[in-house]
């Protein structure tokens, strides 16, 4: 039983490694860039799947959390603190003393001083969790369309903020974000020489997150979340603190989104306001819907395929329209998602001869 649980994950890891091997032998390793980005976007989407498919809530603000993570990390690792240090700012001195700042030099030989990516990453995650928590308390009291509107409003606010705030680079976004050295020899950045390593970093994070979520949905908490989806009133009557469970789920998925934002920002070496855009959120929701809502595997597969195709530019300038249309069609014709047309049950029945 215990070992059986891990067989699907092991196969998934094999497939991910197999894909990399395939790009190697077919000499198409340029695909790896999009595959890596796909893995990070999929991380956001499986987190959202927990909120939508299991807890039965909706969020049209996940691009906002992605952006909060990415932008916080980008600002902290690119904002030059040297003037503050020269002025003798005690907090900067403290950080420098703890070895949490890195020195650099620009083209003109001026010295630069940044926060290390590790600290930036942790601060970005904490900030996102905090914002998700504070937004979640009032917003999650709403249901259905109202919740969708409220989270969308939040997403739009984040979008306008990153677009208007000078420190966020306004419409240009932030570039020249340094690589994130996880440990000596393992760095998240966009160097060509690092492409294979980065693909595996992204896949490892995705796989670990996926396993954690799979564990969660098969636990007592997962059952309680599905119960909230089924009937909030009855779940409440069974002693489930529905408000708290919804909030924790929301925060958890926001943290997943932020983590994806942070790593993708370091990988791409920058982030722009389009990452916070409402169409990104719509895309995430559409993919969870097409993946079957309450199906982690379906969502993961759909997230991988559709994001990859989109990043390869298959949908051209109709990119956003494609996901909008997908969402509408799914909602109209297959609200349970196309991967839940009970193919598995039929197959099982066929196998057992019933």
């Amino acid at each position, binding site marked *: 039983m215990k070992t059986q649980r891990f067989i699907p994950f092991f196969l998934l890891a094999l497939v991910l490694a197999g894909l990399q091997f395939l790009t190697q032998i077919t000499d198409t390793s340029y695909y790896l860039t999009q595959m890596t980005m796909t893995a990070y976007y999929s991380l956001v989407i499986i987190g959202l799947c927990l909120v939508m498919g299991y807890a039965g809530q909706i969020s049209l603000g996940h691009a906002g959390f992605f952006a909060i993570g990415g932008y916080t990390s980008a600002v902290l690792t690119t904002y030059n603190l040297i003037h503050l240090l020269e002025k003798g700012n005690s907090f900067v001195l403290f950080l420098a003393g703890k070895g949490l700042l890195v020195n650099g030099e620009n083209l003109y030989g001026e010295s630069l001083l940044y926060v290390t990516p590790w600290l930036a990453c942790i601060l970005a995650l904490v900030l996102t969790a905090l914002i998700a928590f504070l937004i979640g308390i009032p917003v999650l009291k709403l249901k259905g369309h109202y919740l969708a509107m409220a989270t969308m409003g939040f997403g739009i606010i984040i979008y306008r903020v990153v677009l208007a705030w000078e420190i966020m680079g306004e419409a240009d976004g932030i570039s020249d974000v340094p690589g994130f050295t996880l440990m000596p020899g393992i760095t998240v950045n966009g160097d060509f020489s690092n492409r294979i390593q980065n693909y595996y970093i992204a896949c490892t994070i995705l796989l670990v997150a996926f396993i954690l979520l799979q564990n969660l949905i098969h636990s007592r908490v997962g059952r309680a979340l599905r119960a909230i989806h089924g009937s909030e009133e009855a*779940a409440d*009557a069974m002693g489930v603190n529905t408000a708290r469970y919804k909030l924790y789920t929301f925060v958890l998925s926001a943290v997943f989104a932020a983590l994806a934002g942070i790593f993708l920002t370091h990988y791409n070496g920058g982030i722009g306001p389009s990452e916070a855009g409402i169409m990104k959120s719509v895309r995430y929701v559409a993919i969870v819907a097409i993946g079957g809502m309450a199906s982690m595997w379906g969502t993961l597969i759909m997230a991988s395929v559709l994001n990859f195709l989109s990043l390869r530019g298959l949908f051209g300038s109709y990119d956003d329209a494609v996901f909008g249309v997908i969402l509408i069609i799914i909602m109209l014709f297959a609200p349970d998602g196309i991967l839940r047309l009970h193919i598995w049950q039929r197959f099982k029945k066929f196998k057992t001869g019933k």
Partner: protein
Amino acid sequence: MTLLDVKNVNKRFGGLQAVSDVSFTVDRGMIKAVIGPNGAGKTTLFNLISGNTPLNSGTISFNNKKIHGFKPYQVAQCGISRTFQNIKLFHDMTALENVMVGRHTKSRAGFMAGMFHLPFTWGEEKEIRHKCLELLELLEIRELADVEATSLSFGQQRAVEFARALASEPDLLLLDEPAAGLNIYETAEIARLISKIRSQGITVLLVEHDMSLVMDISDEIVVLSFGRKIAEDTPREIQQNKEVIQIYLGDDDVEN
């Protein structure tokens, strides 16, 4: 010994006095029924006890502890479990999974424990499953464990809801119209199950329309009319009570 003590409870909805100065007690181990014509305030009274509706004044204590003002999940954690008039099972979950949710207050694995599949949760999950299968056995629906709950027949769904409510090992079970929508055979079946539940040492408070069910199984009956308590007695006495007969059958019958 008094388990539930409802004292001078009032509830207004705008200009409507839904429950007005109602007091009664439920002793440990008994089956007590609340009856009354439509709109008498039975379900409102129920919702006040279970925490779904806040009360305007009065007190409700359970095990000598004040529980009014509690949220429904807190009331559940105190040891009061309930079923719903229009069955509220969790869809997309099997009968067994539904019952396992009922075990929520008796287990403790949280988000971290769940995500990391911590060792203490293994034994806990096993215990939950074992206990819930026992309950399905008790309610004679063991063979339906793996069937999706919402695809069961109405009577079976009711039994699943009973099992789910019992999974938290409550001291008090609130049954909101357990016979609603059932035919006479299913009603008799439900009556048998309720007696069986009581024999497990669980106190039962039920709201019901079906007189045969109420008269057969309850030890005491509270009669409500327009939000007021007009009688509280044993079934035999209630059947003789003039005021009760009047509100159920009208004035003429009293004169005859």
